[in-house]
């Protein structure tokens, strides 16, 4: 048996589901529900895989990806490799509502967000800094490099392409604590 309305979300992020459900219960739109629900996770840094202060890249920076899609009109707004702006799904919605584009990326997406009134701020926290410094101390393991020298399974970069390409079995780094 099923019943409408419905909110369903990945992982046990209960507060996100509650936020979205409250929007629907007060006759808000499904777009508002998805935006509020995902934004709740951005604010609460759900399990460290959403929002600021998580998943630092090789240079220690946290960057964000988000999208929102309207199932009635098939309109989409998305941002990727967003820097210095915390509310990624809010920026994705701004892409949908204030441009004719679908996806904006990187530094230019951050400038668009600032133009649209989003606050620019550092996405680094003590926690992400600590993750990064431990990683550096551990010879930058794991990493997503291959066919480079120095050997990326032993040491940090900078890396240069190795002459001979070896088809390596894909390393499995994604897990419960680091995933998309």
């Amino acid at each position, binding site marked *: 048996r099923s019943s409408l309305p419905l*909110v369903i979300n990945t992982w046990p992020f209960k507060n*996100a589901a509650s936020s979205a459900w409250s929007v629907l219960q007060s006759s808000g739109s499904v777009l508002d529900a*998805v935006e509020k629900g995902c934004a709740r996770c951005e604010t609460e840094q759900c399990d460290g895989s959403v929002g600021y202060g998580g998943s630092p890249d090789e240079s220690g920076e946290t960057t964000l990806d988000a999208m*929102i899609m309207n199932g009635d009109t098939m309109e989409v707004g998305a941002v990727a490799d967003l820097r210095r702006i915390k509310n990624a799904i809010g920026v994705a919605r701004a892409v949908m509502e204030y441009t004719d584009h679908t996806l904006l990326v990187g530094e230019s997406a951050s400038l668009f967000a600032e133009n649209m009134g989003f606050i620019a701020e550092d996405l680094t926290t003590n926690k992400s800094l600590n993750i990064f410094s431990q990683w550096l101390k551990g010879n930058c393991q794991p990493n997503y490099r291959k066919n480079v020298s120095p050997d990326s399974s032993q040491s940090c970069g900078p890396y240069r392409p190795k002459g001979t390409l070896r088809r390596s079995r894909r390393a499995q780094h*994604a897990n419960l604590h680091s*995933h998309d």
Partner: protein
Amino acid sequence: TIGMIALDQHGHMAAGTSTNGLTHKVPGRVGDSPIVGAGAYADSSAGGAAATGDGDVMMRFLPSYLAVELMRAGADPMAACKSAISRIKRHYSEFFGAIICANTTGHYGAACNKVSGFTQFQFMVSNADSDAPVLKSVDC
């Protein structure tokens, strides 16, 4: 990563995702979450889906789009989710990933790929059956 699908009593549907991606990624790397049809997809006339996991692999198979198109063709959400996972598994048997699916009548399902350390996938559901969100899980 959070992926979410919302469906109101009038049949309007939306989907969305938000993530900070893989830890220690190469700067500039983007995962599946913001890619339409990969991280999420919604068509109010067919259904919605949202995926999570190793985005570098998953995005190549557009799992959310595939699941919605299977529901459009009549598959129930659980079957659509399972097909989307098995399509990836055929090429990457050890990939880390999961997907949630919902059709236009509010039925929903989820599926995941069983790998060591990941044998069960948890997700949240809110609907008229229970005002408070309910924790659900599927075995991978």
